[in-house]
C-alpha cells in the first residue's frame, strides 16, 4: 500500500537498527510521548529490535487515559438525562467512571452513539432539533480543530441543541510537568508528530533548551519511530539538546495556520485536571466566552461537580513513564481489558492495553 509500506520496509528497518546500535555508546532513556507511538512500538515489536542500551518509556499522550474521572462522571450524568443523544469516539465508551461506563449506560437505555467525527454529531443535532446532542470533546491538539470547527459551524447555522463536553488537553504543559520533576529519568523525547502537524513545534524549543533534552518530532510508522530514536541518540551522544523534525512529510515549524485560526476563535487556554498528573495550569482548552452556550457543562449545570480520584491503580505512574505496565502488580491479574482498573487498560492508545493486547509478558523472543 502506497504511503504506508515504504515506512514498514524490513530492509530499511534493519539498516536503521544497525545505525542506532552503531551510534550508541552508553544507555539512554527515551520517552515517546504519544499513545499512538506506544502502540506502534508494541505492535511492530520495535523495542525488541533495538539494542538493549536503548530504553523506551511510554508517555502521557493518550487523551482517553488522562481524562479525569470527573469528566467521565459528567458524561455519564449527561447521557442519563432524557432527550439527550450523547456522541463520542468509541474509545471513551469503556473507560470506567465512578458508577459505570458509557457502554453500560447505553445498555441501560441511554442514547449513546459512536461517531467518527464531531461533524457527524452536529449532523445528528441538525436532524433531531428536539433532542440535545452532546459530543465528548476528548483529545490533544490533534482532534481540537475538528471539534472547534463543529462549534463554529453550529454557531453559524444557529444549531442551538449541540454542545461539547470539553476534555481537551495540551502536550507542552504536560511535558513541562514531567521534565520539571526532579525524579525525571527522561533523557530525550519523541514528540507527537500529529500534534505538531496542527500546532507546529516552536513551542517545544524552550523546553529542549531549559531541560537540556533533545526533542524529536516523530511519526507513527516503524521507520518514523526508528528515525526518531536515531536522531535522539545522535544528539544525546553529541551532548546536544535541540528540537529536530523527523516527520518532515507532514509536520511544519508553524503547523497548520487554518487549524490554529479556528482554535483561536472558538477555544481559550484554561487550567485542566489530568488523571495521574493532577491539575496543570494552562494545560487545556475551554470554550471561548463567545461560545459558552455550546459548553455542555454550562448547558447541563455541571460546572461544579468535583470528583476525587480514588487510589486503586498505578496508571499515573505508567502515564509518567515511571513504571512499565507489566511492573504493575494488577496487570493481567485484577486488571484486564474486560475489567479495567484504569483507562490505560482500555483505550486503543493506552500503554497497558498495548502490553496486554500484544502479549508482552508471554511472547518467547527470537525464532
Amino acid at each position: 500500500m502506497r504511503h504506508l509500506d515504504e515506512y514498514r520496509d524490513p530492509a530499511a528497518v534493519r539498516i536503521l537498527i544497525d545505525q542506532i546500535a552503531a551510534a550508541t555508546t552508553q544507555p539512554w532513556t527515551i520517552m515517546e510521548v504519544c499513545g499512538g507511538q506506544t502502540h506502534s512500538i508494541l505492535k511492530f515489536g520495535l523495542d525488541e529490535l533495538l539494542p538493549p542500551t536503548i530504553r523506551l518509556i511510554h508517555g502521557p499522550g493518550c487523551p482517553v487515559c488522562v481524562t479525569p474521572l470527573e469528566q467521565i462522571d459528567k458524561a455519564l450524568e449527561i447521557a442519563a438525562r432524557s432527550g439527550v443523544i450523547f456522541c463520542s469516539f468509541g474509545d471513551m465508551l469503556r473507560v470506567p467512571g465512578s458508577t459505570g461506563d458509557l457502554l453500560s449506560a447505553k445498555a441501560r437505555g441511554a442514547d449513546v452513539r459512536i461517531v467518527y467525527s464531531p461533524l457527524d454529531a452536529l449532523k445528528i443535532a441538525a436532524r433531531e432539533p428536539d433532542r440535545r446532542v452532546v459530543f465528548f470533546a476528548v483529545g490533544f491538539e490533534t482532534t481540537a480543530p475538528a471539534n472547534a470547527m463543529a462549534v463554529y459551524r453550529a454557531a453559524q447555522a444557529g444549531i442551538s441543541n449541540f454542545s461539547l463536553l470539553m476534555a481537551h488537553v495540551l502536550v507542552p504543559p504536560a511535558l513541562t510537568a514531567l521534565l520539571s520533576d526532579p525524579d525525571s529519568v527522561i533523557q530525550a523525547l519523541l514528540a507527537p508528530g500529529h500534534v505538531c502537524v496542527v500546532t507546529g513545534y516552536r513551542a517545544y524549543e524552550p523546553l529542549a533548551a531549559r531541560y537540556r533534552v533533545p526533542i524529536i518530532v516523530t511519526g507513527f510508522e516503524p521507520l518514523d519511530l526508528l528515525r526518531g530514536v536515531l536522531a535522539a541518540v545522535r544528539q544525546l551522544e553529541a551532548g546536544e539538546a535541540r528540537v529536530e523534525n523527523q516527520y518532515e512529510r507532514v509536520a511544519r515549524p508553524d503547523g497548520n495556520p487554518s487549524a490554529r485560526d479556528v482554535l483561536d476563535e472558538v477555544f481559550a487556554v484554561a487550567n485542566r485536571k489530568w488523571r495521574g498528573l493532577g491539575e496543570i495550569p494552562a494545560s487545556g482548552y475551554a470554550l471561548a466566552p463567545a461560545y459558552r452556550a455550546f459548553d455542555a457543562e454550562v448547558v447541563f449545570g455541571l460546572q461544579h461537580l468535583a470528583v476525587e480520584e480514588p487510589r486503586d491503580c498505578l496508571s499515573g505512574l505508567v502515564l509518567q513513564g515511571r513504571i512499565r505496565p507489566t511492573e504493575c502488580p494488577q496487570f493481567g491479574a485484577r486488571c484486564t481489558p474486560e475489567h479495567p482498573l484504569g483507562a490505560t487498560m482500555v483505550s486503543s492508545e493506552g500503554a497497558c492495553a498495548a502490553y496486554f493486547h500484544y502479549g508482552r509478558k508471554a511472547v518467547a523472543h527470537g525464532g
Partner: protein
Amino acid sequence: MSNRLESLLACPLPIDDDAIVQMAHGGGGRKMANLIERLFLPAFNSPALSALGDGAVVEVGGERLAFSTDTFVVSPPFFPGGDIGSLAIHGTANDLAVCGAEPIGFSVGLVLEEGFAIDQLRRIIASLADASAAIGAPILTGDTKVVERGKGDSVYINTSGIGRMRPGVNVAPDRAVAGDVVLVSGPVGDHGIAVMAARNGIEFETTLHSDSAPVLPLVRALLDVAPETKAMRDPTRGGLATALCEIADASRAGIRIDEAAVPVRPEVRAACEVLGFDPLYVACEGRFLAIVPPHRAEAALDALRATADGETACRIGEVVADDPGRVVLRTRIGSHRRLDRLSGEQLPRIC
C-alpha cells in the same frame, strides 16, 4: 511534585457490569466466551456442545451427523456481495462444511418487524432459496414471527443445518500438533469491511464485496487429497486471529503465523488503517483455515488453488511446540507479537 502526585496516581475501581447484556456479549471475543463457559455450558451439561466446534457431531443409527445453528442480525440486511438471506445459508452451511460434513438440509426461522417492505422480504427469500439450491441442500422446515414496529430491526434470521459426516474424516480443534501446517483459503476481512462500508454513519467508499459464499467446494477439494486434515474453522466474528486462538487453546499447541504470508486485499488493509482495525480480526464469510499434516500441505494447496474461489489459498504458518496454547505473529519487520482473542466488540452486527 512527587508527593502531590502520589495522592493522584489512581484510577477507579473496575466495573463488573455483567448484570445486564452488553453488545460485547455477542462479539465473539472474551466476553462471549465467558458467557458460554460460565452460563451456557454448565446449564446444558452436554458433551457434544462442550466440544465447542462450529457444529456438533452426533451419532444416529450408526451414522455420524453434524448439526449446527446460527442467527443473523447483520445491519444493513443488504450489502455489496450479498444479503442476510444468502449469508444465513452460507453461515450455517460453512459451519457444517468445516466440521467435515456434507449438508443435507436447513431450517429457516424468520423474525420480521412490522412495517418491513414485502419487496425486500421477497428478495431475501429468493436469496435464501438460491443459496440453498447452489449448495444442493434444500430448506426442510421453517417458522415466521412478526414483532411490533420498533421492537426489532427489519429482519433477523436463524438457520440450522444437518449434514452427513464424510467417512474417514475427523477434524477437531484439539487435534493440531507441532509440525502441522496452517492454510487459509483466500484473502481475509472482506466481509466485515464490505458491511461496514455499507453501513449508515460511516462514510467511505469502496468497491469491495463481501466474500459471503459456500466453502463446501473448497473443503471437498481439500479433503479429497488430505483426508487426514486435523482441524478446520471458518473465521467469522473475531476473524482469523480468533479462530487460530481457539485452535491453539483447544490443542494446547503453539501456532506461528507469518504476517507477510496472510493474504489481505489492499482495500481491506486501507480501510483497516483508517478505521483502526486489524484485518486479522475482521470477519470473513466465505473463507476457511485448515490445519493439515506437513506431508499433505503441498497437495492440499494445489487442490485448493484449482477451485474457483481458492486461487489465492496459501500457507500462513505452522503449529509449533513452543508457546503452547498461544498464537505468535512474526511481523513483516521480523519482530514477534502475540495474537490474542478480541477484547470487547470490534464490529457489532456483522453477521
